[in-house]
């Protein structure tokens, strides 16, 4: 049926991990709820609608805004590089590093660079790339991928961090979070000062200003983009917004949706290299615009709203499935509900055909999405695509036969009643109206077995509503 990863079961069976995920996401949920409460933000729903409309307009006119961005960045003395895939980004970074004799790259948090595995690609060529976001730094030391779009080390306790620091940095066991931060800072300060290239992501690309906007709380993105002589911002093409005047809207939504912050600690508006009359800033400024499959999504009118995502992570925090299975159960770095809709579109639905089905379709994700992506609708669409692909490939198997039978029976009311009554007569019926805990061999089929692995099953009613209604009318 589905070959979901074993990681799902392991995560659910780990009480420590369950507690860590539940507490961290719960905290983010309540911070968000506080921040958007009607008393503080009566216009919240209206902002979502506007953000959705602006994103729709931008995505529908992406070619126009990409050109506008490029011309503005160029006018500021920067350079725009269009890259089709991960290899092209790596080639660009490696080529530039070679030309400039660069040895060390500092990086601030960027899901896009995680998406293309940039660190691994450049490290193969004797370049050192250091993550400078605290969570990302911890994960880099531990050789793990981000657990969450916004809070990458959400699953780790300070005791685990202490162990990682002791093992990798040779420091004494330190469990106080403030002191752990000091340890990381002392290592990273040296890296910032020595770095030749700084790489950041972008939360928004502002077309009319030729600017890269980065929000953060630690100051490491600001340092990454200003201390080294070269700044490279790497972003997916969907990160565009048309105008600087659209920013307040998106910034209001992003901080509140992600962490409940009205504003993040740092908001950097980066446009071009240092001008002659400026003290700070890089000598060179590059904006790398990554496709990596995004134009494929763009081509599909039904599903292109997946590209509206501003990566706030709210859908992860509010997803009851993410909160049980955690970020590492998903096949790609994009986890949670948004991961469930974009992963199949990037990789093809048959790479992880179980993924769109790993949802109760509760809709909590769509309810909190700041740009109103209809995630459940897209999941349903992707499910039907999986079924179509399996049918074409002849691998739909018993499930397909099961649903054919279901549809056939449900168009034959008398037969449906008869089948139901046969099940009631010959099926298991525990004494005293109790529910069923186990079933005899004949009924021991996979769905029943899976149901009973977790909970009891109601016995069919002695008389159906159809029968009772007839008796009642007499």
């Amino acid at each position, binding site marked *: 049926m589905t070959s979901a990863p074993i990681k799902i079961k392991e995560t659910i069976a780990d009480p420590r991990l369950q507690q860590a995920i539940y507490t961290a996401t719960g905290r983010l949920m309540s911070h968000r709820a506080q921040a958007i409460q009607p008393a503080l933000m009566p216009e919240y729903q209206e902002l979502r609608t506007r953000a959705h409309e602006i994103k729709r307009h931008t995505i529908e006119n992406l070619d126009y805004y990409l050109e506008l961005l490029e011309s503005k960045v160029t006018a500021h003395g920067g350079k725009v590089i269009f890259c089709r895939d991960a290899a092209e980004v790596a080639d660009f970074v490696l080529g530039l590093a070679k030309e400039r004799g660069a040895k060390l790259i500092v990086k601030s948090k960027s899901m896009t660079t995680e998406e293309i595995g940039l660190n691994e690609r450049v490290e193969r060529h004797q370049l050192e790339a250091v993550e400078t976001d605290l969570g990302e730094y911890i994960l880099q030391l531990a050789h793990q991928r981000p657990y969450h779009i916004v809070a990458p080390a959400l699953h780790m306790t300070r005791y685990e961090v202490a162990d990682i620091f002791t093992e990798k940095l040779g420091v004494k066991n330190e469990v106080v979070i403030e002191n752990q931060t000091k340890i990381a800072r002392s290592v990273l300060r040296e890296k910032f000062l020595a770095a030749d290239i700084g790489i950041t992501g972008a939360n928004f690309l502002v077309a009319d200003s030729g600017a890269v906007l980065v929000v953060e709380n630690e100051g490491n993105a600001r340092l990454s983009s200003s201390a080294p002589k070269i700044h490279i911002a790497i972003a997916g093409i969907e990160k565009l917004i048309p105008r600087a005047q659209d920013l307040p809207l998106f910034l209001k939504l992003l901080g509140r949706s992600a962490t409940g912050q009205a504003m993040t600690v740092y908001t950097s508006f980066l446009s071009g290299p240092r001008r002659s009359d400026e003290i700070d800033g890089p000598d060179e400024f590059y904006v790398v615009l990554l496709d990596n499959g995004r134009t494929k999504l763009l081509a599909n009118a039904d599903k292109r709203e997946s590209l509206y995502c501003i990566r706030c992570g709210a859908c992860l925090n509010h997803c009851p*499935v993410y909160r049980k299975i955690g970020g590492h159960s998903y096949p790609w770095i994009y986890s949670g509900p948004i991961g469930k809709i974009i992963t199949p579109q990037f990789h093809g639905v048959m790479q992880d055909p179980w993924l769109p089905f790993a949802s109760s379709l509760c809709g909590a994700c769509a309810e909190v999405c700041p740009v109103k992506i209809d995630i459940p609708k897209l999941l349903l669409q992707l499910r039907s695509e999986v079924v179509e692909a399996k049918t074409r490939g002849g691998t739909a198997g018993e499930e397909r036969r099961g649903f054919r039978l*279901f549809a056939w029976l449900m168009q034959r009311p008398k037969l449906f009643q008869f089948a139901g009554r046969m099940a009631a007569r010959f099926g298991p019926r525990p004494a005293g109206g109790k529910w069923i805990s186990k079933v005899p061999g004949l009924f021991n089929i996979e769905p029943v077995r899976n149901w009973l692995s977790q909970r009891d099953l109601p016995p069919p009613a002695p008389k159906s509503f159809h029968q009772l209604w007839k008796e009642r009318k007499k």
Partner: protein
Amino acid sequence: MPSGRVSIFVTCIVDQLFPQVGLAMASVLERLGYRVDFPEAQTCCGQPAFNSGYRDEARAVALHFLKVFRDCEYIVVPSGSCTSMIAHHYAELFSEQAKPPALPVWEFSRFLTEVAGVEDVGARFDGVVTYHDSCHALRELHVKDGPRRLLAQVKGLTLREMDAAEECCGFGGTFSVKFPEVSGAMARTKIDSIQRTEAGTVVSIDSSCLMQLQGVISRAGLPIRTMHLAEVLASR
């Protein structure tokens, strides 16, 4: 005073597993002065196939439903999920040209509060209850206050909110058997929240959620029972 005829769609799950819910719904409607009509050729709305990705099969069942319930003045359903399937998702099964006319389909509690315009149906139920918001009712039909207002008018009943009222019970149709560990873990989180209220009864407007919750309650031997809103409102 309300009057007229309502047609009930009891849903396949109520028909075969929980028929008392359908009877309770009919008796509340009759008590309010409605003539209740039960189209006997009804089966299922098709949601199991639709949610599993089998759109052709779902469409076939939907067409049967549309045939059985054509020309009804009101269709009342004891389920938010099935109501949403009919009201919202049927449209996705057909092309623009073949779109069926919108049906006058109402989730039971919403029919009472909005069409019948009643909150006190003359029920009596002694005990503390907590209300579980079923996801499709809450997020696709925006049913939230109505069931609570109806419960508040039941004599002898104390409504005590749980902290995770809006969190999914983990049923999710075939999700419950495709990802049993996840589904079970979600249900147990919900049950923990219910237990913290110390309510003896958990009430919902969807029998499928209640089947999931009761299944876990039964397995754990907990002193909690599940009741559909219609059953509470039919109590006297």
